[in-house]
């Protein structure tokens, strides 16, 4: 069985290290925050100008002036700070953010990512995604391994317009954990009930199996 959204988020939470500043994208990446161990001292960055995102507010704490990049109402964590969008992207583009987690429609074996535009469909815009993939120290993609028809989204070369070139470090898909290396995709972990061979078959790009490849644990 492929991982559920929650399992995916839980697995990605293991990628967050003590002391990290992390920017989480919209969708599954946002769920990652729910699983980060409270032992880890982590600051979540929101590109609209908040470092230190707290939990969602109680009904009586809701403040229209305090939202995250997904426009949801949030609270401030202890030690939080507010700043302008220019300062926010100085943090992001300037390489001060340790990790960003975003979704993708396609990633290829060179680490190119496409997640903002499908030709012929309404284009909503890239928001901060192009800056995040260009500037964060580490880029992890949370994605479905295949589309609804079973076609691989881990491609030899992206077919959709790119968000960034050669920038993805690791993919956590609903089937496994895959690093992007100069030799292409390397499978590190597979989801329970999957096998490395099955994942290879569902991957279009060049993939090798790490000698240390193991079953994913949560």
């Amino acid at each position, binding site marked *: 069985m492929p991982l559920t959204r929650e399992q995916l988020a839980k697995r990605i939470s293991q990628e967050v290290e003590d002391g990290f500043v992390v920017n989480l994208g919209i969708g599954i990446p946002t769920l990652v925050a729910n699983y980060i161990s409270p032992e880890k001292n982590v600051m979540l960055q929101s590109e*609209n100008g908040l470092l230190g995102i707290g939990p969602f507010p109680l009904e009586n704490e809701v403040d229209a002036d305090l939202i995250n990049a997904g426009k949801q109402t949030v609270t401030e964590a202890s030690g939080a700070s507010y700043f302008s969008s220019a300062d926010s992207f100085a943090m992001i583009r300037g390489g001060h953010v340790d990790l960003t987690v975003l979704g993708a429609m396609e990633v290829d074996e060179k680490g190119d990512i496409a997640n903002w535009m499908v030709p012929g469909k309404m284009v909503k815009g890239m928001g901060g995604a192009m*800056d995040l993939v260009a500037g964060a120290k580490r880029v992890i993609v949370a994605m479905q391994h295949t589309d609804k028809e079973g076609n691989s989204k881990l491609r030899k070369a992206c077919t959709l317009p790119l968000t960034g070139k050669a920038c993805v470090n690791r993919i956590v898909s609903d089937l496994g954990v895959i690093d992007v290396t100069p030799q292409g995709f390397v499978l590190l972990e597979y989801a329970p009930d999957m096998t490395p061979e099955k994942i290879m078959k569902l991957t279009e790009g060049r993939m090798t199996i790490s000698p240390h490849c193991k079953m994913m644990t949560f």
Partner: protein
Amino acid sequence: MKSKVVKNATEALVGLQDGMTLVVGGFGLCGIPENCITALKELKVKGLTCVSNNAGVDDFGLGILLHSRQIKKMISSYVGENATFEKQFMSGELEVELCPQGTLAERIRAGGAGIPGFYTPTGVGTKVAEGKEVKVFDGREYILEKGIKGDFALVKAWKGDKFGNLIFRKTARNFNPMVATAGKITVAEVEELVEVGQLPPDQIHTPGIFVQKIFQGQGYEKRIEQKTVRKGS
């Protein structure tokens, strides 16, 4: 000294004409100049180019001016929550320049700071880079992006004084400080307008030099796009 204080948005926007470029603060519906947007609708100016991270929603924010077909072109990073926008964009009625959010923030900052262009790694190798100069620094590629200036800049602050010093509140700051620097005429609307000397100089986010007109706004709706709460224990 000639006073910067005006009565309301209508008075602040005197001189704003068809075809002008407006740089507008806010992120989503947070920290947007609500009073100025309402006044623009009443002014019926047309053919506007609006530089703003988002385009509002159907019936609020810049969505109001899209609905009344006063905007000719938007320069934004994300325009997803707006059906009017989608219709006008798909039909070719509305021109759109999509710009990465960090690049947009920096273009406005640069415009206001007298910097005509800058190199950024954002968007290298993507559609955004098409037609732009590429330069290599220390082995990495960067693209040339241009600064943005507007005929008018419209910002919303929490507190302001009569010299135009501004203090923003929480994430309602967002694009507002850069936008304030980027207008030939910058209009600030504030929730609370105080006398000069009443704001602590160390707490000011935007020094009054950038602001030409200021007024105390009224009737702020501060609409929330995605109200999300947790249950109390």
